């Protein structure tokens, strides 16, 4: 088994949703991630805040925002275990983030 990173991008602004909607959405995440955990394929993962500082020009320039905006903004990540890139991609298909306009990029974690 190898480790794969799901880079989750985009998504709607959840702060405009009602508490019930948020709770239902979080339940979907629990079910999806719970399924991965039960199969022993979940390593971990966290959502990310929108604010960011970006360092460029060899770390000499600091910008008070992420480089990407909207659909390109990384909103979170998940690390899973799978045998192939295709299997990992299959696992990503059930992510509840898709209901809220997310995209997921699946990348194998490289051994160096």
């Amino acid at each position, binding site marked *: 088994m190898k480790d794969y990173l799901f880079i989750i991008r985009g998504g709607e602004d959840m702060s405009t949703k009602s508490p019930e909607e948020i709770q239902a959405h*979080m339940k979907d*995440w*629990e079910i999806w*991630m*719970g399924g991965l*955990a039960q199969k022993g394929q*979940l390593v*971990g993962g966290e*959502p990310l805040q929108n604010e960011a500082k970006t360092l460029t020009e060899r770390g000499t320039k600091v910008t008070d925002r992420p480089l990407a905006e909207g659909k390109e903004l990384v909103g*979170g990540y998940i690390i899973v275990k799978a045998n192939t890139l295709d299997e990992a991609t299959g696992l990503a298909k059930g992510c509840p983030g898709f209901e809220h306009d997310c995209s997921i990029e699946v990348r194998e974690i490289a051994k160096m």
Partner: protein
Amino acid sequence: MKDTRKIDQTLNHLFRHESGKMVSVLVKIFGSENFELAEDVVQDALLSALETWKYRGMPENPKAWLYRVAKNKAIDIIRKNKHSNIIDFSDPEKQLLTSEYTLKSTMNNYWQEDYIKDDFLGMMYACCLPEISQENQVTFILKSLCGFSTKEVAKSFLTSEDTISKRLYRTKEYFRKNKIKPEIPSAEQITDRTSVVLSSIYLVFNEGYNSTHSEALIRKDLISQAMHLCKTLLDSERTQLPEVYALMALMCFHTARSEGRLTPEGGLIVLSRQDRSTWNKELIQHGKTYLYKAGFGNTFSTYHFEAAIALQHCVAKKYKDTNWKAILNYYDLMLDISKDPIVSLNRCLVILELNGPQKAFEAIEKLKGNKILENYYLYHASLGSINEQLQCTTEAINNFKRALQLTQSKREQQFLKDRIASILN
């Protein structure tokens, strides 16, 4: 400043009835190796309640408030420790506690009413593992499940706080080393494991019911806690066993008569002189209902017969109406289950009522030399009563004097002194 007395009362009540449940849930989340962490969270939640309610007044639903605070504190602890190895997150369900995607939602699952009940029961069974000595079981139950302070537990067993702390420590170490999970035993094990739980509950009850204690409040508390624990078993289908109903019935019958057993000054009144109108009829009725339910199934426990005996006393309008024949029959059935010397001793007293002192003397003679009875004050006191009725006053006085040496209870000592004095006069 709001009504502090009402707040104190509510908190006391919540502490007695909810802290054990909260501890059980938290132990399930943090693992039994982190028992103290679980207790700290509950303690913190109660302190927050005390401070907040004093200034802002009591919330509409104090219980829900307390649970919410405990839950939030548990979330804080998980966040702080998710990258440490203090808490074992290897279980798939617990793994979800380590991600913000799933932490709150998973945490909520642990605090659902049905799960809380099961965890509390599971904790009762964990406290009563056969490998833990009974005194350690009972100590742990009172402290962790009934919300007693170490001081209150020490008072309950007439021992030092130091001894209690040591007992608690030993049990916690046992949990930690053996990674004990609070669980309700499987259907195959439930009868055996429940019998251990019941004998601990009965021990708690007897500590409260017997007159060893001068403090009436502690006694009442022990009785009500024992009944509360037994009721918890009856509330769950998996643990509704006939013997649980029987013990509940027995405790109802005993408690119904507890007011009539003592004089206003706290002295003991023998059964024959008790004012039967002071007995609690409602509790006797409850006891009957429980005993009826205990009749289902094909097993009879000693609790069944003890309850049946207690019922005979409850329904006799006067002392002389007591159906001693039926009672003797129950004693014989009880001795068929186990040859308990205390039961044999009590049987002699029934014979005394039924067949007179000579027959009773013959029966008690057969128990002579039993090591447990030789050191049991009631054996000597009973022998004294029999000898007294046989007009063997010297022997009787010696018996009562020996009994006096064997009891610590002031009330019982006074009772025995009175007996001696009445013979001498």
